[in-house]
C-alpha cells in the first residue's frame, strides 16, 4: 500500500471521529446487565464464595488454573488480620459489586466504577475459575474498554472493541467449522437438549428435524466466519448484525444464557450499530474532515446525542451548506 493510501486508511480508521453516543448506551447497559446477572446470586453468595459453600476456601486457593488475588484470599486475609467473619467479607464485596454496577448504569463516576467492577469481577470469578464461563471473560474485556474510555481516545477504544468482536466470531467460526457435528446439525441438537439457565422455549419436544439443525448449524458457522470481513462492508452490515442479534436472542431463549446473550448483543450494537447510526444521512467522510479543518474544532461527545446529524459531530459548519 502506498503512503497516501496508508494515510487515508489511518485517517479513516483512527483519526475519524465517530459519534460518542455509543459509549453512553454501552456503559449504562453494561452496568444493567451485570447488575441483573449478579443480583440473583446475592442471597447465595455465602454458599457460593463463603465458608458454608460447596468447597473449602483453602482447597479453592490451590486451584490449578487460579492466578492472582481471589475472593477466598481476601476473606482469609481479613479474617486473620482484621477478625472479619468470611461471610461478612463476601457480603460486603457483593454489595460493592452491585453498587458499582448501579453507578455504571446511572453514569456516576463511570470510569472509576468500571475499574472497581473489573477488579471485583476478577476477584469473584476469574482468579479462581471454578464458577466462570465465557461470559465472565467477555465481561472483563467489556469493563476494560469502559474503564479505559476517554473522549480523546473514543475512536481508539471503539476500534479495539470492533476488532475484538471480529476475533471472537472468527475463532468461534473456525473452531466450529472443523467439528463434524456442526456440519450435520448434531452439535446444535445436543446444545438445545441441555438448556442451562431456565430457557423460555423448549424446542426438543417438537423439532427433531435433522435438516433444520444442519441448516441452522451451517448458518451459525457461515455467519461467524464471515462476520470479521463483512461487518465492515456497509451494505451487508445490517444483515450480518441482524443475524448475529437473532442468534444471540435464540441462545437466550432456548439455552437460557440470558446474561451472555445480552452482553453479546450489547457489544455488537455498541461496536457496529450506534457509531454508524446517522451515517446514511451524513456527509461523505472527505467533506466532513474538510469541514473539521475549516471549522478548526471537533467536539467529542461523551454519551450524549450529537449536536448535529453528522457522523463526526463537527460543529461550526451548517450540514446543509458544506464548504
Amino acid at each position, binding site marked *: 500500500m502506498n503512503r497516501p493510501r496508508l494515510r487515508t486508511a489511518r485517517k479513516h480508521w483512527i483519526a475519524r471521529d465517530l459519534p460518542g453516543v455509543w459509549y453512553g448506551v454501552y456503559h449504562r447497559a453494561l452496568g444493567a446487565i451485570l447488575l441483573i446477572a449478579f443480583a*440473583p446470586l446475592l442471597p447465595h453468595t455465602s454458599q457460593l464464595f463463603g465458608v458454608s459453600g460447596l468447597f473449602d476456601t483453602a482447597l479453592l486457593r490451590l486451584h490449578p488454573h487460579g492466578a492472582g488475588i481471589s475472593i477466598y484470599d481476601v476473606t482469609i486475609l481479613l479474617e486473620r488480620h482484621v477478625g472479619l467473619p468470611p461471610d461478612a467479607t463476601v457480603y460486603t464485596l457483593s454489595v460493592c459489586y452491585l453498587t458499582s454496577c448501579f453507578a455504571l448504569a446511572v453514569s456516576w463516576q463511570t470510569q472509576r466504577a468500571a475499574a472497581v467492577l473489573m477488579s471485583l469481577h476478577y476477584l469473584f470469578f476469574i482468579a479462581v475459575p471454578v464458577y466462570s464461563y465465557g461470559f465472565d471473560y467477555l465481561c472483563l474485556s467489556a469493563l476494560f474498554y469502559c474503564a479505559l474510555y476517554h473522549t480523546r481516545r473514543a475512536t481508539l477504544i471503539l476500534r479495539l472493541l470492533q*476488532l475484538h468482536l471480529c*476475533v471472537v466470531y472468527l475463532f468461534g467460526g*473456525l473452531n466450529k467449522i472443523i467439528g463434524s*457435528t456442526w456440519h450435520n446439525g448434531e452439535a446444535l441438537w445436543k446444545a438445545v437438549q441441555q438448556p442451562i439457565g431456565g430457557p423460555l422455549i423448549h424446542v426438543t419436544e417438537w423439532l427433531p428435524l435433522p435438516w433444520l439443525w444442519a441448516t441452522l448449524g451451517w448458518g451459525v458457522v457461515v455467519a461467524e466466519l464471515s462476520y470479521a470481513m463483512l461487518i465492515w462492508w456497509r451494505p451487508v452490515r445490517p444483515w450480518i448484525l441482524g443475524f448475529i442479534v437473532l442468534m444471540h436472542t435464540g441462545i437466550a431463549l432456548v439455552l437460557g*444464557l440470558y446474561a451472555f446473550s445480552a452482553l453479546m448483543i450489547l457489544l455488537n450494537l455498541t461496536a457496529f450499530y450506534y457509531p454508524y447510526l446517522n451515517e446514511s444521512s451524513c456527509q461523505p467522510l472527505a467533506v466532513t474532515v474538510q469541514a473539521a479543518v475549516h471549522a478548526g474544532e471537533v467536539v467529542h461527545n461523551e454519551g450524549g446525542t450529537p449536536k448535529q446529524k453528522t457522523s463526526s459531530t463537527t460543529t461550526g459548519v451548517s450540514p446543509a451548506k458544506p464548504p
Partner: protein
Amino acid sequence: MVWWKRLGWMVIAFHIGTALLYNIEGFHVSLSVVGADTVSQSRLFDLLGRVSHSTPITAYARFTGLATGYGFYAPHVASPYVIEVVTYAEATGRCDTLIQPPWAFGSGAVRYRAFTSSLRYLLPEKRRLYDTDTLAIRYTRVLVRQAAHRFVGSCQTQPVWWRAYALTLPTLQAPHSTFFTLLADEPASFTHCKETLDSP
C-alpha cells in the same frame, strides 16, 4: 505521525495480538480434538504457547479477560455432567436424591453448570478429548467429592451416597439412545440409608 497516535496503534496491536495468541492456542487444541494432523505446525504452536504464557502477557490477558479461547460449543458440544447425592433426613426418616445444590437455579444454575463442566477431567482416558494432567484429575476428584458432601446445606439431612456421571444425550440419528459414563460412585460418611440404596 504524532507519538500518541503511534502509541494508539501499538496498543491496538498488542491488545488484539494477545487475543489472537490465546485463540490460536485454543484453535490448536480444537484441531487436536478433531484429530487433525498438526504435527508440522506444532513447533509454531509451541512457540506461540510459550509467548502467551510469559508472565507479562499472561497477567495482562487475565486481567483484561483475553486469557481464553472463543470456541464456544466447539469443535463439539460437551456432554452434561451430573453429581447425584442420596440424602437421609434423620427427623423424617426420608431419603432423597439431589442433583444440584439449592441455589442452582437461574444465574446460579449457569454458575453450577460451569463448575460441573470441569468433571470432564474425570472421564476415562479413552473418552477424554483433551490432554489432562494428573494434578487436574486429582484436584477435580477432591473438589467433586467435597461438593457432593456439602450439597445439603442443613445439618438435619446427611449425604449417604454420591455418584458423578457424564450423560450422553440422544442424537438426531439415534433419538432414543441415552447412556451414562460413571465417573465416581462412593458412599458418603453417613450410612443410615444403605439398605434403601442397595435395594433394586
